[in-house]
């Protein structure tokens, strides 16, 4: 191809997963080009709640989540900045005996799987840890050592680090064509052409479009998950809180504002990369928040927004080899990709550099959906 540029690795997608892969590869001396169709960190990476947690992860994701937390505790070694990461207790409250029972079963399941980080707490402990939680809450599931970070600060830090390591970042370059011939991927994007032995698909909610070009079919649903934030409020909470049987994520940031989310959906316009809010769904989110924290009744929401998330049928990501050798997938994080970005970039780099990774990723194989399709 005339005018085609070469790189040791080409990454499609300038969100945190793409940046993380770029950083880990560049640190090992790999020459990386990263292609982003909009701006770095424009979508889910900037629009999420910043949760960094092991609590509530699907069982196959627990090992990778545990490794993720370890990395976050030392994130400065990776990107020279703290990314606003701070440890915060994660608590999932139960509102009645049935809920408590469900949490107990979960705690036991995780324990049987070999991990002890999800522990039960009783009503007294719950109310002393969360003095403002609704009086009717009867207990909860707690994880200590999880935390949260600042999505904006994280994107900036990862972006800066990637550039400082010599990663070539091209924005405004949507990928239009991918072909594979004789061990080389050819990629056309934004009027440019690239050849590379290693192609990484980190295209988020558009990951299925890229995987399709690479020969792998992945059923992704683009969801617009809504978040809302309040004005500054005098501090009353230091934990991150969810509730059994409710869709809710609730935390108070250092600046006093309260961030509320959890997974209520608006509308995603994938082509334009925009989202529309659904007021009734947002109202349901507000109802959940108020039920668990009644003191929020007269606090004021100053902004609501939504990020575009790529959601897979089993709500677990696609991580690992593409069907075609030299190709790799890293997308479909189904609204919990933020915490996993630093570690997953390392996993991909390990696969490229040493053809293996210590972390178990078989459950995230790209062909699992096809196998299901074949069976059914």
């Amino acid at each position, binding site marked *: 191809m005339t005018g085609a540029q070469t790189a040791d690795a080409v990454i499609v997608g300038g969100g945190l997963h793409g940046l993380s892969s770029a950083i880990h590869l560049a640190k090992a001396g790999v020459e990386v080009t990263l292609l982003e169709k909009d701006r770095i960190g424009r979508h889910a990476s900037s629009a999420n709640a910043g949760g960094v947690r092991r609590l509530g992860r699907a069982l196959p994701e627990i090992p990778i989540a545990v490794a993720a937390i370890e990395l976050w505790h030392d994130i400065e070694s990776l990107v020279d900045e703290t990314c606003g990461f701070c440890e915060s207790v994660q608590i999932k409250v139960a509102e009645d005996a049935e809920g408590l029972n469900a949490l107990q079963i979960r705690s036991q399941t995780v324990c049987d799987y070999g991990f002890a980080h999800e522990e039960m707490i009783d009503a007294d402990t719950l109310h002393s840890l969360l003095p403002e939680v609704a009086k009717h809450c009867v207990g909860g599931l707690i994880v200590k050592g999880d935390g949260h970070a600042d999505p904006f600060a994280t994107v900036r830090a990862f972006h800066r680090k990637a550039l400082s390591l010599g990663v070539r970042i091209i924005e405004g370059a949507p990928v239009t064509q991918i072909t594979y011939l004789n061990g080389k991927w050819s990629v056309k994007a934004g009027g440019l052409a690239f050849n590379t032995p290693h192609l990484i698909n980190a295209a988020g909610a558009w990951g299925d479009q890229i995987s399709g070009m690479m020969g792998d079919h992945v059923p992704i649903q683009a969801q617009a998950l809504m978040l809302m934030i309040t004005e500054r409020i005098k501090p009353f909470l230091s934990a991150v809180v969810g509730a059994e049987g409710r869709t809710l994520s609730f935390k108070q940031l250092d600046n006093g504002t309260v961030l509320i989310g959890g997974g209520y959906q608006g509308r995603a316009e994938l082509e334009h990369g925009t989202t529309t809010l659904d007021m009734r769904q947002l109202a349901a989110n507000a109802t959940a928040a*108020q039920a668990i924290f009644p003191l929020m009744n007269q606090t004021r929401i100053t*902004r609501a927004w939504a990020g575009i998330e790529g959601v897979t049928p089993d709500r677990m990501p696609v991580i690992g080899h593409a069907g075609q050798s030299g190709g790799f997938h890293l997308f479909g994080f189904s609204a919990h990709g933020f915490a996993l970005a630093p570690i997953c970039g390392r996993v991909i780099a390990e696969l490229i550099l040493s053809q293996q990774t210590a972390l178990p990723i078989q459950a995230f194989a790209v062909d699992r959906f096809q196998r299901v399709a074949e069976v059914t």
Partner: protein
Amino acid sequence: MKSRTDIAVIGAGPAGMAAAVMAADHGASVLLLDEQAAAGGQIYRAVGSQKATGSAILGTEYYQGGALVDRLAASTVEHVTGATVWHVSDQREIGVSVDGAAELINADHIIIATGAQERPFPVPGWTLPGVMNAGAAQILLKSSGVLLPYPVFVGTGPLLYLIAHQYLRAGVPIAAVLDTTPRSNLCQALGLLPAAFREAGQIWKGLGWLKDLRTSGTTFKTGVEDIRINGADHAESVEYKIAGHWHSCSAESVLLHQGVVPNVNLAMAAGCKHHWSDAQLCWHAQVDDWGYSTVEGVSIAGDGAGIVGADSAQALGGLAALDALYRIGKLSIPERDKIAMPLRKIMSRQQPLRRFLDRLYQPAEQFRIPADPATLVCRCEEVSAAEIREAVSLGCQGPNQLKSFTRAGMGPCQGRLCGLTVSAIIADELGRPVQDIGAARLRSPVKPLELGQLAALADKE
């Protein structure tokens, strides 16, 4: 309040009142939503229940607004006061709160008539208690008869001279009038004067105020290039620079004004496209000559789309309503166009004066882009000009990205007082036009909304 209406009008100033009355007179069901306790918007504020003494102080034009308020009261319009609209969707769903209760309402057509606000005037010390907008002084006078003590009037534009003149007539000792109109504006505006002379009455009136002020013995300084407001917990003095030299005067209150700009938050959050106006140095809604926006079924009328003044706003309200009536099937095109003709005449008559005033009173760059780095740009979150410039030096390319660096625009005023300054500073630092830099992406709720009110919506059908 009904949950469905033919036409919903948001804002009960001249444009909103005119739109509502026009729509109702032609058989549409009309819901008029406004935050204030009575109709009139800002310019005709409290005219319906006027308690202050009469036209000697406030002027005859103010009382003319009363006629429109009376027509509204006599119409079939359902006018809901104390109604804060916090949401308009691209499907014409309206989120509104009245008396602490939020509701979702649907309309076949929406006319946004949210009017104008005063342009921010970021100078050192502008956040001190005792510093207010000239328009705020007007509201105090109109609604409560309250006069602020020993004011310094700072800025440019007819509204500044009007309120200073009203204070003069009311016998309030004035510390000074510091006119920041750039001297170069006058030369450039002179060319537009002949065409504007058709509206000579307005110009004579303005000149009359200025003459009265200048011959009253009041300290009146022109060509003011820079301003600093000083005080410990309250405004105590104003320093001003003329021809390179600083002077000072003491004050008990400071009234700032450098024109008005459209209230764009609701229209922007609804998805209506806007573009930058170099003539008015603010965002203008992209609308056709009926006020129809880029969102289906949504029109924007009056100062909310671009500053036109009260009389034109009234005409534009009527035009938007006529177009809406046609779109919902209440009027044919010939009927619409016929009724529109006198309104279009008013518009074309007023345009030359508007162009003249825009040029003459265009605010100087140093009062839109603060040079003093310590000047607070975002009042809510206390973010200075220096912090914004630093963000640009660290790679920030626009107001949305700025949220990664500072909290500018993230406080309860939702960028109303800092948005224009932020875009101007970033454009200045990057050497690019404001049109390219853009405005921050605004979303619902466009007024802070209580969580409990939002939650209660889930129970309603």
